[in-house]
């Protein structure tokens, strides 16, 4: 039987491969997804605590004013933004739009540029304020 299934390369050997932009966009989608698995725990913890009582709400508000919380929040929000934009690309390409080599490259660049701009805005809001 001819094996036509795609092979997965060893993750540790990845730096030895030519790494085109769509591959970078794809691996970042996975990386941000893994970050969000834990990031959601942080957000759900904050949600649960903030809804528990007014005192705990204030504790959460105070915590979110600390540099540590802002850095964690920045990582989570940046991951949300990247995963969101890269996910939109998937949904668009699922409809058959851009399913060419050139299309894939343009979309990958689009995801990187758009998410970079949105993350820059989010960075400003988190660390400087609206």
């Amino acid at each position, binding site marked *: 039987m001819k094996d036509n*299934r795609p092979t*997965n390369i060893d*993750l540790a050997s990845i730096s030895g491969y030519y790494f085109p932009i769509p591959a970078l966009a794809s691996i970042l989608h*996975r990386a941000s*997804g*893994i970050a*969000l*698995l834990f990031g*959601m*725990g942080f957000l*759900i*913890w904050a*949600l*649960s605590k*903030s*809804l*528990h009582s*007014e005192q705990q*709400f*204030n504790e959460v508000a105070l915590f979110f004013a600390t540099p540590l919380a802002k850095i964690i929040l920045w990582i989570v929000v940046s991951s*949300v933004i990247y995963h*969101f934009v890269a*996910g*939109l690309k*998937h*949904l668009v390409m*699922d409809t058959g739009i851009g399913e060419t080599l050139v299309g894939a490259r343009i979309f990958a660049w689009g995801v990187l540029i758009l998410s970079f701009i949105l993350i820059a805005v989010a960075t400003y*809001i988190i660390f400087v304020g*609206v």
Partner: protein
Amino acid sequence: MLRHSTNLSRNGLTDWLLQRGSALLLAAYTVFIFVYLLFVKEVTYAHWVALFSDTWVRLFTMLTLFSLVAHAWVGMWTVLTDYVKPLGIRVLLTVFLFLLLFSYFFVAVSAIWGL
């Protein structure tokens, strides 16, 4: 035929559809929360409780939590089966994933309905 008993629906197409459907709900909820936090100038405890006491917000949050669990399961299953080859470690990580997602769901649901 390759079978993985840990995928969500035991069917690749259904998993694929679940991933897309849950993605749309998660995206909608993300926009909803971002817009709320950006446009409500000062979020007080009273505002915050009022928001999550609303039946529609609770319903939307519940649907989003189901989506989060399904989306994370399908996504992490894909990543784990791609990169973690030793079966024992993968099973261990899958169990950890299950417990993590279950606790997220439990904590969030209690937070919303405990108001």
